[in-house]
């Protein structure tokens, strides 16, 4: 046991750069497969409802808007989402994806809900992964863009 054995270590750090980051002004990069917020590519959604069935937080809701036109509306309740990306794994056509946003707080839970209204797509499910839950993680593009034009 040494008296003041910690002091040299402390003094060494006095002139070192701090280990912390000046957070709201400077930000760290997130890794490339970060699980941020889920979003939909409506042009590939075939409305199989796998995501709705598997979502553990019941955060995905698909309703039929117009049966004749095959129009559907998907709502992602980001206020309930637990960011597990199971919807991405479950999706047979890669229509669900995660972005890398993590600063997603809002003043009202209503502001967090996102909606897409679209016509059901006719896409072949990817043959490699017929079982949604057993498939390895779908590759997430490093910098996905939010579909803004399709939002209602």
């Amino acid at each position: 046991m040494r008296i003041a054995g910690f002091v040299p270590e402390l003094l060494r750090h006095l002139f070192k750069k701090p280990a912390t980051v000046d957070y709201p002004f400077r930000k760290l990069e997130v890794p490339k497969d970060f699980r941020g917020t889920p979003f939909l590519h409506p042009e590939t959604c075939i409305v199989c409802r796998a995501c709705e069935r598997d979502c553990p937080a019941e955060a995905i809701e698909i309703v039929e808007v117009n049966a004749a036109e095959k129009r559907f509306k998907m709502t992602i309740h980001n206020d309930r989402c637990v960011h597990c990306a199971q919807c991405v794994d479950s999706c047979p056509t890669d229509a669900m994806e995660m972005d890398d946003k993590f600063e997603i707080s809002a003043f009202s839970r209503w502001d967090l809900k996102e909606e897409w209204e679209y016509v059901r797509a006719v896409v072949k499910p990817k043959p490699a992964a017929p079982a949604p839950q057993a498939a390895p993680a779908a590759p997430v593009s490093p910098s996905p863009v939010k579909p803004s034009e399709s939002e209602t």
Partner: protein
Amino acid sequence: MKFQIPIGPQHPALKEPISLRMTVEGEVIRDADLRLGYNHRGIEKLAEERTYLQNIYLTERICGICSHSHTTCFVQGVEALLEVVAPRRGQFLRYLVAELERVHSHLLWLGVAGHEAGFDSFFMYTWRDREVVMDILEMISGNRVHYAINTLGGVRRDIDEALRTKILDSLGILRARTDYYFKLGANEPSFVGRLAGVGRLSKEDALALCAVGPTARASGVAHDVRRDDPYGIYGEIPFEVCTADSCDVLGRTVVRIKELGQSYNIIEYLLRNLPDGPVAVKAPRRAKPGEVVSRYEAPRGENIHYIKANGSDKPERLKVRAPTLANYAATLAMLKNGFIADIPLIFAAIDPCICCAERTVELIDGRSGRPSQVRWSELRRMAARRAGRVSKKRNMEWPL
């Protein structure tokens, strides 16, 4: 003169709500009592109405720090019920994340112990180094806390060669820093003076009260599920069960530090022998009727899930016993005849994960039929009524 000190439900030493009542005489604790149930979420009941797949994410949310422990324990059991076996690469990755989680949890504990003892520099340094392993976990799984890496039949994400090298490099840094700071911490007289001889739990008590994990191992009870009841690939991994004989908080610290070293070795073994192949296989959604007991050595000790299947895609019953609950009885024994100043250290030394232990009951609005939305004025009236009662009671016990 005896009086009662409430520790919790809200107390700066506790990061989660639990209520301990200490009857103290001066600075010495004469009696300790425990009250759970402040934060129950009804997970066991909820699990009965979710599919197995959804339950993975539900069990993950039993706890933040040992999130991978609960999912692995659950997934191991469900895979046995579904009669699927995860491929070897998937298993290696699953237990790689498990050991990384143990490293991060033990480093977290070291920092917390430093903080509870008022040694904030130690706390800051260990937590700074914990960021290394947190970053690795984030790179593997995409999230810092809830890794969500397990799925039925394997794991969800693979690691590439670059990441494998990176983890091996980081391991060297972690090893060096752990040794260095442990040496520094063990050489600081004021810190060791706070830990040694505090919170004694004899080997007999540890056995009788069914203590688990580092708490039991620091009392010389060499229980480790990874060796006693090997699950997954632990039968083939070489490692030692770390024990200490000092039966106090210092012993629990030493056990955790030694386990950090063992975990680094296991991680290195897993990465060096990582087999090729798929990481997951297809799993059915429905399980045949049956029951399974799944055990797992979480960072805090033995974690046990009992799952009963009824033929549907939802479990008939899921029983979760988190390690912290098993250690509560031992904690109460340790607290007796200690000092008030040692309460946070003794309580922290079991590495309590209160949200783990509190998981079973509904907190719905139907509580005693009272309306869920209480008007502000009524709330104030209720608070005043309750405060009036409390102060009267306090005057009886507190003759000052």
